[in-house]
């Protein structure tokens, strides 16, 4: 027991109108505190209350420290964009919206956000299209070795990360003459996301009752019609999950577009953002802060959407 804890205990006992246990010598260890401890266990109210109060104080101190740790870096993001004279330390802003004009006037800022949208939507669309088709036939038709295949793909997609495979990916795109091509970036990103997309979508399609398709077939619908008019509407939550997941992944991805797109006109916001603070002289804080905010809002909004709609724990949330 620490010295501090012991003195707190004694203080508590004193407050309860009872003489504190005598302070033991160096060698007595826990002995002096034992009576109050015993009281606490046998339902003595004083010890329990004190311990409870100390617990609350400790709890709120911990929560305050953690809150400060997590909030501190983010304060700048909410204060600086509206500050007439943004510095690196966040302060109560001298409110202005003028900083957003800097953002509008920068030739690269808006173009890069448009590139981010193109990459994100392109990847989400391609992953959704290929992933849904594959997941549907894997769910409904018995292809030999299907489970092993899925398992291997999932394993591979977690091993072959953009970081570990950046060299061969770069060389491959170099050889295919797809450096500086946004379509090339979409293809690479889609390849990386597809295994997990197929896996999750197949799960949704497995849980869809087969009777829907059977009755559609009785009425003479073709497989493609069934897919479009029955399967897609029923599995919409799964499709939305994958779409949001893909968009969020691509939106924040730095490395792949960083190594594959060299022309600043084609680079997405994640890459252009870095050049705002690494290239040349004093960084333009009005530009960086507003750009950061505008660039962050979509992911936060999508997170809130998914969270409200399905709960953040995607899979359990939807299936339950």
């Amino acid at each position, binding site marked *: 027991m620490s010295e501090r804890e012991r003195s707190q205990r004694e203080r508590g006992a004193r407050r309860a109108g009872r003489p504190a246990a005598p302070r033991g010598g160096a060698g007595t260890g826990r002995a002096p505190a034992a009576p109050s401890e015993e009281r606490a266990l046998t339902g003595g109210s004083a010890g329990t209350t004190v311990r409870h109060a100390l617990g609350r104080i400790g*709890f709120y101190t911990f929560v305050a420290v*953690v*809150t400060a740790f997590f*909030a*501190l*870096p*983010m304060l*700048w*993001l909410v204060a600086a964009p509206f500050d007439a004279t943004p510095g*690196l330390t*966040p302060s109560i802003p001298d409110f202005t919206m003028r900083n957003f004009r800097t953002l509008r006037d920068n030739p690269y800022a808006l173009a890069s956000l448009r590139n981010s949208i193109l990459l994100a939507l392109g990847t989400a669309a*391609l992953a959704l299209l290929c992933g849904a*088709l*594959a997941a*549907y*036939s894997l769910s*409904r*038709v*018995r*292809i030999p070795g299907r489970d092993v295949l899925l*398992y291997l793909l*999932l*394993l*591979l997609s*977690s*091993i*072959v*990360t953009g*970081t*570990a495979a950046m*060299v*061969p990916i*770069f060389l*491959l795109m170099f050889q295919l003459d797809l450096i500086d091509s946004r379509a090339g970036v979409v*293809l690479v990103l889609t*390849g990386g996301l597809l295994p*997990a997309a*197929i*896996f*999750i979508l197949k*799960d949704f399609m497995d*849980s869809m009752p*087969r009777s829907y398709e059977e009755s559609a077939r009785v009425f003479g619908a073709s*497989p493609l019609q069934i*897919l479009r008019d029955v399967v897609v509407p029923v599995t919409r939550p799964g499709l939305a999950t994958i779409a949001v*997941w893909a968009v*969020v*992944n691509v939106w*924040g991805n730095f490395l792949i577009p960083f*190594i594959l797109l060299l022309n600043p006109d084609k680079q997405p916001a994640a890459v252009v*953002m*870095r050049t705002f603070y690494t290239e040349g002289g004093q960084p333009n804080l009005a530009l*960086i802060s507003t750009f*950061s905010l505008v*660039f962050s809002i979509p992911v*936060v909004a999508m*997170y809130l959407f998914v969270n409200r709609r399905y709960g*953040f724990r995607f*899979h*359990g949330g939807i299936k339950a």
Partner: protein
Amino acid sequence: MAASTSPPPESALPAPPESPAALVSQSAATVVDVAGLGRSRATAFVAPALALIAVFLVFPAIWTLYLGITDYRLTGRSARAPEIVGLDNYTSALSDPRFGNALWLTLLFVFGSAIVGQTVLGFTLAWTLRTAGGWVRGLVETLVLLAWILPSSVVAFLWIALLDRDDGTLNTLLGTGGTAWLVEHPMASIIVFNTWRGTAFSLLLFGAALGTVPPSQLETARMAGASVLAQLRDVVFPHIRGHVLTNTLLISLWTFNDFTPYLITAGGPNRGSEILPVYVYNVAIFDGQLGYGSAISLLMLLVNLVIALFYLRLLRERRS
């Protein structure tokens, strides 16, 4: 349940922001081709996805086997006609102190920020918040999750601003003006940064895991006078052992493949924070030594493979 189908892993391994929640697939034995797809159409549906995965995910990984034994360069003679150099790349990597430095820093980074930082902070938060009231829990969880979902380029600048030498928030608060944290303590900076960045996953996972501990057992332990540490060791840990391992393996894998520190320190100063992902980028893409970089890439892929195999084995054990 049909014993013939091999079970899919419980969680989709790759990339946050995915939840670790169970992906329990239905028995596949009941699969009938209800939509009348037929085997040929089913194959056609699967083909585009498999082609994308094969070209942009599987091929690059396998290609490193060949590239790693060549002297491929971005420019010059060996760009046009690369020669086979055998294991030279591997032997020179092992004797290169810069590679050794990168390996050591990576270990430090993974151990400090993932295995210690995120796990301990995530678990402590999940444990203390499990009984906390609505708004406290909501506030802390929102902040922790925000740190996780904001784009990496944005959080990188937030931390550069926080740790700035002249008017960073940290120096202002601590009164340590003039301390250039990113220059004097680059590794400590990115370790704390990554703890801040990634704790959300551990918090979510342990939050779910603690729900599986029977409250009656905890209550009994408390009545018997067990200290909090004893409760955690003897009651909680046996229930969540699997979650702890899952968490450790996944966040180690992600941290090992994290490129974000590049955005903060770019490996500097003087290679003081050049972890493996940054090292590969600097050597292969920046300096153009693609053959040598491929050899390092292959080593990274192997490390990922080992971690992923451990994870799969763990899942299979928990299932049986």
